[in-house]
Each structure stands twice: as C-alpha cells, then as structure tokens.
C-alpha cells in the first residue's frame, strides 16, 4: 500500500473514532463547536462540489443555507409539522428550488460574472428576509425553534448532525465520481472541448448548482437544529464568503478539503476571539498566507509532502 493511502486510511480511522467518542470525553462547549464544524463542513463540501468539480465559483451559497434555515424555522414555528425527517427533506428542496431558479439565469455565465451574480442573489434574499418581518421576524430572526422528539439534547443533536453530514458527504462523493461528476470535471478543465465531445455544458452546470444548493440547504437545516433559530446574517454575503474561505483553506482539489478548512476556521475563530477582538484581521492574514504560500490549500500542502514536492494535484 503506498504511503499516501496508508496515511489517509489511518488518519480517517482516527478521525472517525474521535468523532464517535466526542460527546463522552469532551465538554458541552466542544461538542457544540464540533457540531458547528460539521455543519459548515457540509456547506463547504456542497459548494466544493460546484467549485472543485464544475469550476463554478458561487459567492452566494449563504442564500441556499439561509433559505433552508428559514424554511425549517417557519415550518416548525408556523405549522404543526414537526417531524425532522419531513422537514429535513422539504427545507433542502426549497434551497434546491431557489438554486434551480438562479441557475436558469447564471448557468451560461463564467468566472466572475457567475460569482457576482450569486452575490447579487444572496443580497436580494438578505433584503427580502429583513423586509418580510411577519414571516421571518425581520432583523431579529426566528428564535426558539425546537424540534419535537429526541432533538432537544446536545449529544443527540451532535450524533444526528454527524449522521446526516456523513450520509450527505457519501452521496456527494458518489455523484462526484459518477460519469456526471466526471463530465463536470471535463467542463471545469475545458468547456469548449466538452461541448465537442457532446457534453451538454449548460445543463450539467445547471444541475450541479441544483445538487449543490440542495446539500447546502441540508446544512442550513441542521444549523437550525443546532442553534434553535434562523437569522438574517445567514443570507448576508459574509456567510457565503465563509463557505468559500473554508474551501480555499482546505483545498478545492480535495473532496474533504472543506472539512479541514472548516475545522481550521472555526477552531481559530474560537481561540483567537478569546484572545483578541481583531479576528477578521487575523483571518485576513491567514487567507493571504494560504493563497500565496499554498494555493492548493492545506490538503494540497499535505499531498505535496507525500508526492515529495512533485506538485501534482487533482480532484
């Protein structure tokens, strides 16, 4: 077995073991922090499906996150429907529906035209959420959203989140390695040549956005389970920037890059904000350092060490 896959295997087992014992050995605070990392990881993996595979940079994934979060919160507080498995299907579907609408308008666009359009949509959604006070609670959001049944206790929330995130990650991994996923890679590499091998470029990019928004919505729903609320900041563009940041920190050419990015981002945030208030300053410096010194992210750096600096990187 080559050193690399041996490393991945051992490291993976350790992580899995760690994730399972977390609630039994760590304090409630850390269980919460890791839950947060898991949720952001799912958002990151869903964005990376679009960014790393299809090469579409969305700066508006917060919109899908927020749409599902609000759908979840509204369904629970306004309707008698309080069954998490129904809600956790309906809310991501709402996010996917939004993705399907936005996709009609942007799937033909490339590079920064695509990025700027996604920013525009998330800003529109943010304004709408703040305006529709009766439905969304305006600036203060919706608070006190409690799921019925076992999703009240932190450890249960943790295990539930872990299970959903792992399941979604597996599904995205399968899609990413299917012929559909490979068509997306071909489009990322060379959209012109892709159309000459009869790949329907626009349609593939469109479906990639819909799939990605669904899973980002799933993360948004889980966020409500964890925070018991939905807030307009989720749709603010900085939330979207966070999701992009973890992909870049972790490495967009690696499937689990966003998981590492998410862990690094949230842990740094937790530590640094306890020391200084200038967290955004430190984050800015870290992002600069990553982009300049390890453009393939943390996973890229690890991989380069194993490839003895041959510099190969691939999704």
């Amino acid at each position: 077995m080559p050193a690399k896959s041996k490393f991945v295997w051992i490291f993976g087992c350790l992580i899995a073991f760690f994730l399972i014992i977390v609630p039994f050995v760590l304090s409630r605070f850390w269980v919460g922090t890791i839950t947060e990392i898991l949720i952001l990881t799912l958002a990151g993996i869903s964005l990376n499906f679009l960014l790393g595979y299809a090469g579409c940079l969305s700066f508006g994934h917060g919109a899908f996150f927020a749409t599902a979060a609000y759908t979840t919160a509204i369904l629970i507080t306004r309707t008698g429907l309080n069954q998490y498995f129904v809600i956790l299907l309906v809310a991501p579907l709402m996010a996917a529906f939004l993705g399907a609408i936005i996709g009609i308008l942007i799937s033909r666009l490339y590079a920064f035209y695509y990025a700027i359009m996604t920013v525009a949509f998330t800003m529109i959604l943010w304004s709408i959420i703040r305006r529709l006070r009766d439905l969304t609670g305006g600036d203060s959001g919706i608070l006190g959203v409690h799921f019925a049944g076992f999703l009240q206790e932190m450890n249960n929330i943790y295990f539930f989140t872990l299970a959903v995130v792992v399941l979604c990650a597996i599904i995205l991994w399968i899609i990413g390695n299917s012929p559909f996923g490979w068509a997306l890679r071909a489009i990322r590499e060379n959209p012109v040549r892709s159309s000459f091998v009869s790949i329907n470029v626009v349609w593939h990019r469109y479906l990639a956005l819909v799939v990605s928004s669904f899973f980002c919505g799933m993360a948004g729903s889980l966020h409500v389970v964890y925070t018991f609320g939905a807030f307009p900041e989720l749709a603010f563009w900085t939330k979207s920037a966070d999701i992009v940041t973890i992909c870049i920190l972790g490495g967009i050419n690696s499937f689990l890059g966003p998981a590492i990015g998410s862990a690094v981002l949230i842990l740094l945030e937790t530590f640094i904000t306890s020391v200084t208030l200038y967290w955004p300053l430190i984050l800015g410096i870290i992002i600069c350092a990553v982009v300049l010194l390890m453009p393939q992210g943390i996973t890229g750096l690890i991989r380069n060490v194993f490839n003895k600096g041959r510099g190969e990187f691939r999704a």
Partner: protein
Amino acid sequence: MFFEVQNLEKSFGGVKATDNVSLHINEGDICSLIGPNGAGKSTFFNLITGYIRPDSGKVIFLGEDITGKTAMAIARKGIARSFQIVNIFPQLTAYENVMVAVLSQKKRSFNVIHPAKKIDKDEIYGLLQSTGLEQQAQMLGGQLSHGNQKRLEVAIALALKPKLLALDEPTAGMAEEEKSAILETIKTLMKMTGCTILLCEHDMSVIFSISDQIWVLHNGRIVANGNVEEIKNNEVVQRIYLGGRE
C-alpha cells in the same frame, strides 16, 4: 450524399474567411482540405462542426440539414473533430480524457450512481492502444509530449464513434518521423472503424500519401479539387504553393 456543403459563407469584419465554399464527401473516403496558412481551413472546420455559425449556405450530413446547430448537437449526429491547437483536458489523465468522451458518447453523463472509472475500461484502453498511448494512460494530459497530445486529440474524437472524423492539422508542429507515424495510425483507424475522414493540412506531402479526394482552399475559396494526380498537376495549385506567399 454522405456529407455536403453548399455555398458556405462567413465573414469576419470585411474579410471573407469562407467564400462560397461547396464540397461533398463520399462515405469511406479520406478527403483532404489543403491550402496555405490563412486560407480559411480552420474557419471551415469551425463552421461545419458548430463552433461558429455560417452567414449563409448549408451543411448537410446524412441527408439532414445541420447548419448552425450547436457543437454538442453536431457531435451527437456523428461528426467528431480534433483541433489544430491542442485542445484537451490538461488536468485529467490521458485515460480520463478519453473516458469523459466515451461516457458522453454512451449518453451516460447524467448517470450519478455508478463509479465512472469502472465503466467501459476495455473500450477506453482500446482507444488509447490504437492511438499508441497505452503507456501514457495515467499521465496528465498537460504533461504529455506535443505529439502525444495530438494523438490524444484523435483518441478523444474517436471515442465519439464518429461517422465523419474531422482532423484539423493532426500533424501540426510534429517532427517528420512523428508525422508519418500518426498518418499510419490514421489509416489503421480508418480501416478499423470504417469512418470517413476529412483532414486539413497546409503541408501537401502529408496529404498526398493518404488522400482519395483533395480540395484546395485559397483565400477562403475552393480553387481546385480532384485526386492526388490531378492536384499535383494543377497549375493553380502549383502557383499558390510554389509562387511564393501571397
């Protein structure tokens, strides 16, 4: 008629890159389009494969009007092309380059369940083998030598199981030995797959050894056509090629 072009025209600004071009190709032939640099060969290829839309004229393939259809639709109909300037998927391996084309040809590119790497392995290796790339299967497309990238171009095009294979200067930038090797490959492929080939070249020696039918393009117009002997003896062609650059 297998493939026919009627009065095709395309201008860029004031320049007529394709000027009233009509030609036809018989099934099973190797046809060549020759002409000096800038004669409009690549433009013609781009017009018939859907990269750009003609201003007027018709392209008919297997009795169907395919004028102005998208590149994807034309590829689906059975016209595959290679590019003069290497146009591959640089960060995918040679195997993956061919794989995406094979999967797309089989209309599997919307399949989201099966692992792509486990499908059609034999077919993909077969294509790499017939273009002489089996040793390089796991190398990234961008890291192959120029000659091998040109071969990969052909392999990707062949993966589409084309009825008409349009090769835009398949020997461009190659050394002499490499040129004859790739021509051999093309001949073998043709016998194997039975597809019709439309080649374009500016180097006449390359063409003469394999062509059944030759069309000469100059300043966007067809100035001569015929078999190898007729073209060799054609005065206009001699003037274009021997009379210095215009």
